[in-house]
């Protein structure tokens, strides 16, 4: 009974693979995602969107098992009733007004009129679109549309929220606002945030998984990922003329030009053979690059 209740709050993914013809988009993925904000980090084409669409029942898996809050993924209608999905690229009928769009999607979620009105009012307030509710979708800015997107995903009060690259293309202020919004809603549900922007994960997630070529490279707490990179991050000041040699010999994660010299930040198992190199505290970006480096996804010098 206790185990059943535990499963009710989790997404459990067991040995899931997905093929597009011959191409393996997901390769034996095992993951358990609990309540709160969970980050899915990886390069473009790593398989993040495929995994999210599979959880949202928009793609069939080729093999393996997935259960969402105790419900097997095969029960698409039940999964859809408890899942909110915000795709990477979306819009809404351009000639519809903001509140009409939410009302239409509320009908598709089987909500009655009173509940639709209540939830629409509440969510438009939450995403700061109350004043724009009578605007047509075509009149919204990119940031406003994203906020409307999150409102529609939360409309039926889902247990699980899946958001795919929600901050791509937003200005810094909108991005911070959006991350805070996700943080708020993650208090009472599972939120899966897919991104290739490391800063989004750092600012909002306690746990994450790193995907590369359809495989999970790392899965755990953000703090542990950073800890693993401890002692592997170095910085040095080099003559700018020798920068190409440094970049080809080491995995450089950052560069700051200082006149004729450049301060470089390097990920390396051991102290690099550069005069004046000193150890640095790793940040999540370093840790992510180190994870790719350690798993041979990038070679010494930054190539794949």
């Amino acid at each position, binding site marked *: 009974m206790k185990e059943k209740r535990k499963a009710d709050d989790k997404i459990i993914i067991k040995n899931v693979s997905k093929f597009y013809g011959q191409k393996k988009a997901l390769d034996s993925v095992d993951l358990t995602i609990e309540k709160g904000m969970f980050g899915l980090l990886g390069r473009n084409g790593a398989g993040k969107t495929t995994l999210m669409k599979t959880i949202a029942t928009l793609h*069939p898996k080729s093999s393996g098992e997935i259960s969402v809050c105790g419900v097997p993924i095969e029960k698409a209608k039940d999964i859809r009733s408890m899942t909110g999905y915000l795709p990477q690229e979306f819009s*809404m009928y351009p000639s519809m007004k903001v509140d009409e769009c939410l009302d239409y999607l509320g009908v598709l979620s089987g909500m009655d009129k009173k509940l639709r009105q209540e939830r629409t009012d509440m969510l438009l307030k939450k995403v700061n679109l109350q004043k724009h509710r009578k605007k047509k979708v075509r009149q919204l800015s990119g940031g406003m549309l994203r906020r409307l997107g999150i409102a529609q995903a939360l409309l039926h009060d889902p247990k699980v929220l899946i958001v795919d690259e929600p901050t791509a293309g937003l200005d810094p202020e909108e991005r911070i606002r959006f991350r805070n919004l996700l943080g708020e809603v993650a208090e009472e549900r599972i939120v899966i945030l897919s991104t290739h922007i490391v800063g989004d994960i750092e600012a909002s997630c306690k746990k994450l998984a790193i995907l590369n070529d359809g495989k999970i490279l790392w899965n755990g707490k953000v703090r542990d990922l950073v800890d693993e990179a401890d002692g592997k991050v170095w910085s040095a000041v080099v003559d700018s003329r020798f920068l190409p040699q440094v970049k080809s010999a080491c995995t450089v994660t950052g560069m700051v030009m200082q006149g004729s010299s450049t301060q470089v930040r390097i990920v390396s198992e051991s102290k690099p053979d550069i005069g004046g190199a000193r150890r640095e505290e790793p940040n999540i970006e370093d840790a992510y690059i180190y994870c790719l480096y350690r798993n041979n996804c990038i070679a010494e010098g930054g190539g794949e």
Partner: protein
Amino acid sequence: MMLYTKECKKISRSVIYWIFCAIMVLFLVSQFLGEELRDDRLVLNEPQQGWQDYGTAYTDDPEIIMPAAANALVRCYLINEYRTYPLGFIHIVHLKTAEKEKMCMICEKITGMDENELKDILNSVENGNDMYHDQPDYDIQSRLTYEEFKAFMTEADSILGGGSSFAPEQLSLQFGGVPKTYEQAKAEYDELAEKDRFTNGYARLFCDYGGIFLSLLPVFVAAALCTSDKRSRMYQLIYSREVSSSKIVLSRFAALVTMLMLPVLVMALWSHIKIAMFYTVSRVDNLAFLKYTFIWLLPTVIAATGMGMLVTEFFSGIAAVFAQFVWWFASVMTTPIAGKISTFGFVVRHNTIGERDVFMGQMHQFTVNRLFFTAVGLVCALLTAFVYDLRRGGKFNGIRMSEKMLRHQSQS
């Protein structure tokens, strides 16, 4: 019901829907309301003694048809120019030597004259005689039965590639025209007044006109609605909702049918009011337009909409429009404008306010036809729901003909 209402509202905002309404209204106003229901034309319906002309009646009498058809064929043969309508469009045919010889044989057999005698007729025409008014007496009936004559006409039509006036089914319409007598015209009017109570006859003509466009235009609105989710990049938001695929598709189907029927019903009501005002309300059948619009035009809209949705979901909107156009064109071009209702012909025609008995005599074919196309539309809608569900779950992404063709080209 809520989803159905929302879909109706969505359609009402579509530009394509309003274009559809405008075309329907313009067509029916120009062809039916403005032409058939013109006041002076309605007045002419009740014939009076002493008129010069009571219109034309078409007879199946071989005595009238055979000489007229033979005369027309000989004339065309002598100038070697034939007008045919193989796909509804005019096509001028000039025969080559071998075919000309075959046609010469046919002319000789039906007229009983040899080529030289036929040439004399041409010379006589060139000397100023009017071939139609100075029609020679071929005395066909003493040599040929009507069946034999029709066989020669079939052969002639075949030499011309089909679609000519000499095709047996065209003979009465093309060569059987005779002036109506007062009695005939009066009997027709009485039938319209008593049996059809005016509005039934006009309602059939209204449906004849309406059916021509309703068997094509709905596909544009259906394709636009079915592709709107993708065009506005909203489809994933809809796919991930709880509602079943069948509820989405069937609500859209019902909304489309309702909205497409609306302008037709408005025009039907307008027509009814005009006729009722002319003949007085007590003399007309007040439900005729409603009745015919539903039993005649609703199945057309259901079938065209269902087929449009299915092909759009399976292939694309452009493919649906193309397929519907081919179906419509083939059906319109092969259906006589009155007198014959085929069981499986999509377009039903009866382009006259009269000939009630001819229409009623085919009521069985009409009923089966309309039920068949209602079923076709409903089955298409259900299949659309099935295909939509496959798409929604990522199990089917539609077939893009353009991609297939490109792949085929690159392979070859």
